[in-house]
């Protein structure tokens, strides 16, 4: 049995029964309570403090095949009753959709091993400031670091309770600690910024402040005096900070919605090879202390561990109840998207990838939103480093990289440097022969 606040659980029950009494045939209620404290620090002193206490309730009412939702931050009983009334009135005049329903009962989450998602430690603001002070001090030891865009430390505790009229009711608590440091380097009129960031369920797992500060400084300094290179074809290595985005594009292209609606460059690719032989993609919700770990999905469905890509072949989609019914597949607990999504490690050292060609563009940042999930067309602003014969030569900025994700996926080579820093994680990635537009 997971732990949650019984008073909040009672509000969920009251809303379900009120909606039923008002004419709903089925009801789902989610209640999320969040408390967080953030401290920002700049130039050796406090810049901003922010304390937040928020609660949000959302209710979806079904009248047979009709459905509408309401949500509110105001849990006042009168307000909730008014909203439920409004929801039922709207549901009555909403057209039927045969695929509207709560999940099948046998799919509901029942129990799980302990995932250790809550660290109850409260970090006093003074301790947060100490952490940030150390990070900035370490960064400013470098003479090239002349300014800061600020660093911040935030501590957040969240409680989720979900209930529905089919008898599902459960909840759990999570915590999150995040530290961020962004500094500005300068050399002759050129200013560059870069950051380091660490985010964990447990305080003790965060990067040490000195590491946060020295990484941010290192990244900002290596960008100084960039050159704009001539347009041409380049082999590109995507730094881990950037390569994880490929998994995000992949994830949005295999949701039940984009597959059913046909708005995906991976439609009709099930059981087909989309990556090379040694690439595997996994999504699992039950990693202890995992940033993306969850006990159940947004509908209370048990989250299966998925081997989405096995030996380069697309094996599965991300399915919720609604699109599962449309596609005639059972929900695998992905209402709310992926959990801990990652490429399994490749078998090459990053060093080997850097030596795989005389000249390589090592991309450390991208800018813009030029990815089209329908066609797979990809065009983004980029910056990074020129590597020649395995060594960094000079930074690069103000260029673009372009290609098509279908082709890029099939050409990807993975390094063996996977780390679990985020909820979506990738090792460094090499893609040969991409178009770079510069001068």
């Amino acid at each position: 049995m997971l732990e949650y606040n019984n008073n909040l659980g009672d509000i969920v029950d009251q809303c379900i029964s009120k909606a039923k009494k008002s004419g709903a045939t089925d009801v789902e209620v989610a209640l999320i309570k969040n408390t967080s404290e953030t401290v920002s620090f700049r130039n050796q002193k406090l810049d901003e403090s922010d304390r937040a206490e928020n609660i949000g309730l959302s209710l979806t009412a079904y009248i047979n095949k009709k459905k509408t939702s309401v949500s509110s931050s105001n849990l006042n009983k009168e307000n909730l009753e008014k909203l439920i009334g409004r929801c039922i009135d709207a549901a009555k005049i909403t057209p039927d959709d045969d695929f509207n329903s709560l999940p099948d009962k046998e799919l509901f989450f029942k129990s799980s091993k302990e995932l250790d998602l809550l660290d109850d430690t409260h970090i006093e603001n003074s301790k947060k400031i100490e952490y940030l002070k150390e990070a900035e001090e370490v960064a400013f030891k470098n003479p090239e670091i002349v300014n800061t865009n600020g660093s911040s430390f935030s501590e957040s505790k969240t409680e989720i309770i979900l209930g529905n009229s089919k008898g599902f009711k459960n909840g759990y608590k999570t915590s999150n600690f995040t530290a961020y440091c962004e500094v500005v380097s300068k050399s002759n009129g050129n200013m560059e910024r870069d950051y380091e960031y660490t985010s964990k369920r447990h305080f003790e797992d965060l990067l040490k402040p000195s590491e946060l500060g020295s990484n941010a400084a290192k990244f900002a300094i290596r960008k100084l005096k960039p050159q704009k290179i001539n347009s041409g074809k380049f082999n590109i290595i995507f730094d881990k900070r950037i390569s994880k985005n490929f998994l995000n594009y992949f994830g949005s292209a295999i949701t039940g919605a984009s597959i059913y609606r046909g708005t995906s460059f991976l439609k009709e690719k099930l059981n087909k090879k989309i990556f090379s032989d040694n690439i595997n993609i996994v999504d699992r919700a039950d990693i202890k202390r995992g940033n993306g770990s969850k006990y159940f999905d947004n509908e209370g469905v048990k989250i299966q561990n998925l081997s989405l890509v096995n030996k380069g072949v697309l094996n599965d989609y991300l399915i919720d109840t609604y699109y599962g019914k449309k596609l005639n597949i059972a929900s695998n607990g992905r209402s709310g998207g992926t959990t801990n999504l990652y490429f399994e490690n490749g078998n090459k050292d990053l060093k080997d990838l850097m030596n795989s060609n005389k000249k390589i563009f090592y991309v450390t940042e991208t800018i813009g939103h030029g990815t089209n999930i329908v066609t797979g067309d990809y065009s983004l602003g980029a910056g990074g480093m020129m590597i020649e014969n395995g060594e960094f030569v000079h930074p690069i900025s103000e260029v673009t990289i372009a290609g098509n994700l279908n082709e890029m996926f099939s050409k990807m080579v993975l390094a063996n440097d996977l780390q679990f820093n985020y909820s979506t994680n990738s090792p460094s990635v090499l893609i040969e022969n991409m178009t770079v537009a510069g001068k």
Partner: protein
Amino acid sequence: MSKILKNSELDITSANSIVSETLNKCDDGELYLEDSKSEAIVLDDNKIKSSSYNSNLGYGLRAVTDDVVAYSHSSDLTKKSLNESSKNLKSTLSSSNGAYNFEIKKTNKKYYTEQDPIEAKNFKSKIEILNQVNEYVRKTDNSVKQVTATLLGEHKSIEIIRNGGEILTDERPLVRFNVSVMLEKNGRKETAVYGIGGRQNYDAYLKEADWKNVCDEALRIASVNLNSKPAPAGEMQVVLGPGWPAILIHEAVGHGLEGDFNRKKTSAFHNLVGQRVASEGVTIIDDGTLENRRGSLSIDDEGTPTEKTVLIENGILKNFMQDRLNARLMKTKSTGNGRRESYKHVVMPRMRNTIMLNGKHTQEEMIKSVKKGIFAVSFGGGQVDITSGKFVFNCTEAYEIIDGKVGSPIKGATLIGDGPSALKEVLMVGNDMMLDPGIGTCGKAGQGVPVGVGQPSLLINKMTVGGTQL
């Protein structure tokens, strides 16, 4: 009189005394109250996919001393909760010894209706319109494979309670209507989105001719793209169409002229006031006073009346956009650009409607003068790195220009440039200024706020086009 507190457990007398006790030794700050309602109705795949209604109530208590901000917000509008917030602020700013600045400009001007658009139109007729839209789009073009139509409505009441009991209020309506289509022909798929909106009731945007025009535009852009060829790669001349392509201005110079980045000296523009940052003939303003526009505000989220702020005049950098904190520290006045997404967010300087004014050239002249380049008509979004000044935006409708003539449509591509130099590369400013259709949302530090943009056609000497064809 506080309308928002009337329906809560917190009374105005207690609120006032907590505010004054918290802010007495601070330079600035306020209690911000918000009561907002919003709805979203989505038609997708021939069905009403979802309809939702949201009602939010909350407060944010802010204390500012020197350059330090302490903020505490909650959805629990009670005396107990506000006292806790006050305690938190006082402990953060315990050594504070400021003098509260009571001065704030007043206005009676209103740039939009107070009506709640959600209540002004009944639910059933909203569903009917979405169904008509779906039917019309599918009937007009038989290569349509998918239609998504969305109605978004919002009404936000805000109250700013200042130390001393002064209350400043605003009622803000906002609606938006969007159509997204996917076409499929000869095995090729393309999508396009178009929308309209602003601070009026739905009916101002949903007359039959209006919604049909939105559908026709989405269909036109998607079918142009069905015939697009790969975009070129490299530096070339770019002609921008009027209206929405002004997100170039928003990204290239707008963000870099926000007061916070300049006070902190992290903007590439921070030491350029009085200097040439754009070609002669380029004048850019940020205007919060345009009636019914998406980016307009009668007062900003600190209570300052908005205005028309000249940022760049005939190529010379004149002013930054300011909120009260950054204005005070830079020894100038707030320009009414202090904005926040909601009570959950702190105020910072943000754009309103950012517009480049007319020049004297025609679009025809511009295209004629280009030997090899692209003509960019419609855009997705953009992004900027304020410190290095590099910015991007991605085309969703563009054509090649060869020897002064518009040629084939090209696939969507990202364009990248350098903010401080891009506007010096402007060769011609058009005479066809247009505002965008009312669809922009600007993101900064995790906060989204509605904004507008506008510009005439522009010819830019060189930008890097991120296509695949070398």
